[in-house]
């Protein structure tokens, strides 16, 4: 029956999570529960799901700011959605309220009027009507009420928090409703679960206003904004309005709540998926495009491919996802057509359809990847395809998607930052008025932990135990800070999710501006999935940018256009380089631990890289699965299979379970359940209860198929041990491809490769280590030069290096390293030039002017024309940017071989 409830998704206002509210409502025996968060629908989907779990029927609305009223003080009104039309109106109204200045949502009566279809407006004490009633101006209140009634369907909301005068105001509000013939309902403007939570709400009140705790700053002075039972609501109303009216009000409230109950399927559209328009017969077109793909990929004669395609298309047809695949293929094609590198990651690489549509460059048949890990009859919801794009051009990819599908049918996904220990201590400390320096010191004394662990950390961590922080007034700070644990703090754009839908998207999700100016849904990634919206993860990967830069540099330097995707994937010299484990800068295999593993594993082909990437995970390393595998691989011992029947499944990893895909197959072999059910069983392994259920099922079926008890037990132990840290082979394979590609570039175009790595900084090493590695591979590092350096690192033929005798410091070190160092003229022909961006503090505009006004004849010439700020010029001088101009002075052409320029540069540059 509660119609006015704020959850913690009313940022810095509500103190209870939607799940807790729904559970409490069920305990109190309430049949309906509304969620009307302030200025947003951030918690709406969670509320609907929580209500379903708790057996309560959901109502949705929003408590909208209407701007300051004539007497000052912000006015607010609650809008409730009735039916499907109401939900669409509500989404669009919230979006419209956010259309102005970012972070300052404000609606108005006129705006509500524009979206009045299916909305019910509740006018409570915070509305202009309520203000007039409080001011004892019944005439004004009646006029304002009339204006609202001309705008939308209205009801007056009677709220009594037992503050001074609340009771009388409630009675006058009711009198107004009766005299004007407007329905009146009860509300409690709920902010938390129970009376004891009020200090949290009070801290949030002052935190929102950035003031210290004082009675006059509080919205909540009585501790009565909690979720009350119907009986308590009735008693409160009886006190101010009389027992008879109280019964009438409760009945009216229940009736309105009933009317506004939303059905998740019918009204919110949660029971179907809302894909972009793809035209008629998506399945037919998908099948046709797959057939084309078969021919294009040279698979049209493979019976295996045909069988696999049939199988996958069957699943897609049964799940009605043809339009989904067409859309993702379209999006990936669109990104690639802009010349942005784009690779698939994750389980999607296991699907032949993805390969044939050009979404994935990996052939799942060649790498023996199964589809079921990605899409199976047993997997609910939409499958998940993630695309890796160049990090530097990620937003460009976003814009391309927005242009293609239309701003109305596209939005980014949001995410909520939540309170953790430090942020909670800071906010509570400020509220109680501790000095800022003290707050800072206390907050920083805590590691990055959850807020609810604050007091446990005080007891457990020795450095905190000695600090005497757990004393006196701080005890209160910590206690309240703990109760902020996990509450949303502010909204941010999800780093990669993009919603692609059709013109009805704005009827299904409220949208606000992100900090970058993109339209952003108020729903997070779980919410949009529940709403049946297609979320494409477009992830910015620096290595893709580094490789794109390298390819562009090769072309610019006259080396022709490289198509990385078309490069043969079995180049022996590339694997030769990988085996030397000098893999700095290569994707995924550059960390010290990986290099050690690479050294022992000695990969010979792409499949070895897949295994290598999968083995280098905390789980397999910790449980020492690595050693038996390596021993078998080196022939020190024969591979041990838990059962002979499993040999075909585990042969690729020599008896060890490495991949999720192998889990599916092991379950399938022992139970004969098929891969789809095996995938369902694998997902259940994640939880303790799931393991018990699956365990019984597995034993029963395996024994019935005639396996002896000992083997069944052995295999089951293996499965459960693996359950915690398996790796998806398709994911590893989609990572292995950029790994190989980066190694290939390093082997064949080292200068361009290092230019890319230094420009986009994709890895874990400082640039000094990368530069060392470049020297090792015989790539001369050409010093900063105002006449030659560009914004980014670039490749330069060293013969044109002019004053700097590049080859002099390149030759000897090239031979000093291991056998992987490329030798020959190709490697010596190019050096890399230090980028202007490396100069500490230089601005984009300055870089632009320096490049624009070239060439310079002298420092004075540069000073006059490039107009670069004085400290930057000084740094340019110190870093040697003018050395080439004054070469005659420094005289020796071998100057570059004495302290190598980049080392000297290190102090002046970043």
């Amino acid at each position, binding site marked *: 029956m509660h119609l006015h409830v704020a959850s913690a998704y009313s940022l810095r206002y509500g103190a209870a999570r939607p799940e807790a509210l729904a559970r409490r409502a069920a305990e109190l025996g309430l049949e309906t529960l509304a969620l009307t968060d302030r200025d947003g629908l951030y918690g709406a989907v969670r509320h609907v799901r929580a209500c379903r779990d708790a057996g309560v029927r959901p109502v949705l609305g929003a408590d909208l700011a209407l701007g300051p009223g004539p007497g000052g003080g912000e006015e607010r009104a609650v809008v409730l959605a009735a039916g499907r039309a109401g939900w669409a109106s509500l989404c669009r109204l919230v979006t419209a309220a956010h259309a102005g200045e970012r972070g300052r949502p404000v609606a108005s009566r006129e705006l509500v009027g524009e979206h009045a279809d299916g909305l019910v407006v509740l006018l409570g004490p915070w509305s202009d009507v309520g203000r007039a009633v409080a001011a004892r101006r019944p005439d004004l209140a009646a006029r304002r009420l009339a204006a609202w009634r001309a705008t939308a369907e209205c009801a007056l909301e009677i709220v009594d928090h037992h503050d001074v005068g609340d009771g009388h105001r409630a009675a006058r509000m009711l009198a107004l409703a009766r005299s004007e013939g407007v329905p009146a309902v009860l509300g409690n403007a709920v902010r938390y679960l129970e*009376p004891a939570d009020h200090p949290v709400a009070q801290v949030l009140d002052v935190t929102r206003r950035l003031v210290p705790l004082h009675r006059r700053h509080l919205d909540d002075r009585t501790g009565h904004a909690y979720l009350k039972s119907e009986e308590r609501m009735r*008693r409160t109303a009886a006190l101010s309005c009389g027992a008879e009216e109280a019964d009438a009000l409760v009945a009216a409230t229940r009736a309105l709540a009933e009317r506004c109950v939303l059905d998740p399927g019918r009204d919110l559209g949660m029971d179907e998926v809302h894909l972009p328009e793809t035209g008629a017969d998506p399945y037919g077109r998908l099948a046709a495009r797959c057939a084309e793909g078969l021919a294009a990929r040279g698979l049209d004669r493979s019976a295996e491919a045909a069988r696999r395609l049939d199988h996958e298309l069957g699943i897609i047809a049964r799940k009605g996802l043809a339009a989904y695949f067409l859309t993702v293929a379209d999006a990936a094609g669109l990104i690639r057509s802009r010349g942005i590198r784009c690779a698939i990651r994750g389980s999607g690489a296991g699907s032949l359809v993805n390969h044939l549509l050009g979404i994935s460059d990996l052939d799942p048949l060649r790498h023996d990847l199964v589809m079921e890990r990605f899409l199976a009859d047993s997997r609910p919801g939409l499958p998940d395809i993630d695309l890796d794009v160049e990090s530097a051009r990620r937003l460009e990819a976003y814009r391309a998607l927005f242009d293609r599908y239309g701003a109305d049918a596209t939005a980014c996904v949001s995410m909520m930052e939540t309170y953790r220990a430090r942020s909670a201590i800071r906010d509570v400390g400020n509220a109680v008025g501790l000095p800022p320096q003290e707050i800072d010191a206390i907050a920083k004394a805590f590691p990055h932990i959850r807020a609810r662990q604050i007091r446990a950390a005080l007891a457990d961590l020795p450095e905190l135990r000695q600090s005497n922080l757990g004393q006196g007034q701080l005890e209160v700070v910590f206690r309240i800070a703990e109760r902020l644990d996990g509450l949303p703090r502010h909204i941010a754009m999800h780093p990669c999710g993009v919603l692609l839908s059709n013109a009805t998207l704005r009827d299904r999700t409220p949208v606000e501006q992100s900090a970058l100016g993109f339209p952003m849904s108020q729903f997070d990634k779980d919410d949009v999935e529940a709403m049946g919206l297609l979320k494409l993860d477009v992830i910015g990967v620096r290595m893709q940018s580094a490789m794109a830069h390298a390819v562009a540099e090769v072309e610019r330097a006259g080396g022709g256009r490289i198509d990385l995707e078309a490069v043969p994937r079995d180049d022996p010299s590339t694997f030769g380089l990988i085996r030397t484990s000098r893999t700095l800068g290569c994707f995924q295999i550059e960390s010290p631990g990986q290099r050690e593993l690479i050294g022992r594993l000695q990969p010979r082909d792409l499949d070895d890289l897949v295994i290598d990437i999968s083995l280098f995970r905390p789980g397999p390393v910790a449980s020492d699965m690595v050693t038996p595998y390596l021993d078998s691989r080196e022939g020190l011992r024969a591979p041990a299979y838990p059962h002979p029947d499993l040999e075909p499944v585990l042969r690729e990893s020599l008896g060890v379970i490495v991949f999720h895909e192998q889990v599916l197959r092991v379950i399938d072999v022992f139970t004969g359940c098929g891969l789809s059910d095996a995938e369902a069983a694998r997902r259940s392994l994640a939880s303790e209860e799931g393991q018990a259920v699956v365990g019984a099922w597995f034993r029963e079926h395996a024994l019935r198929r005639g396996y002896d008890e000992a083997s069944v037990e052995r295999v089951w132990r293996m499965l459960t041990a693996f359950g915690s840290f398996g790796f998806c082979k398709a994911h590893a394979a989609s990572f292995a491809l950029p790994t190989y590609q980066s190694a290939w570039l390093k082997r064949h175009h080292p200068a361009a490769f290092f230019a890319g790595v230094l420009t986009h900084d994709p890895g874990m090493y400082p640039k000094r280590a990368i530069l060392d590695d470049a020297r090792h591979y015989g790539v001369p590092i050409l010093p900063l030069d105002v006449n030659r350096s560009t914004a980014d690192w670039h490749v330069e033929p060293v013969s044109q290096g002019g004053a700097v005798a590049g080859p002099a410091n390149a030759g000897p070190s090239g031979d000093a390293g291991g056998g992987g160092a490329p030798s020959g003229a190709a490697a010596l022909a190019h050096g890399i030039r230090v980028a202007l961006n490396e100069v500490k503090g230089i601005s984009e505009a300055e870089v632009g002017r320096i490049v624009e006004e070239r060439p310079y004849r002298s420092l004075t010439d540069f000073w006059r024309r490039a107009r670069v700020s004085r400290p930057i010029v000084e740094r340019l001088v110190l870093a040697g940017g003018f050395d080439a101009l004054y070469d005659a002075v420094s005289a020796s052409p071998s100057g570059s071989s004495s302290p190598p320029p980049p080392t000297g540069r290190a102090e002046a540059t970043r």
Partner: protein
Amino acid sequence: MTRVFGDPVEVWSSDGRPVRFVWRGRLYTVRRVLEHWVTTRDWWREQQPEAEVTGEREFWRVEATPDREIGVYELRYDAATATWMLSRVWD
């Protein structure tokens, strides 16, 4: 005129509302509740707050009478200590 007291009183309630109270040895019968309000405590100003910051102060302004003469009395209930007090009197 208003007089301010802080005398402990004994109060009988029914259905959550005070109906009778004893002040300075005389029994008062509540005729009518004029106003009722509550406030939370200023927990952030207390030096040694109790383990859980709960408890509110509940105020009842009532018309009550010891015999025939009617006066207005303000009763205060402190939830933390579970005590009643007569805080103000208008007569």
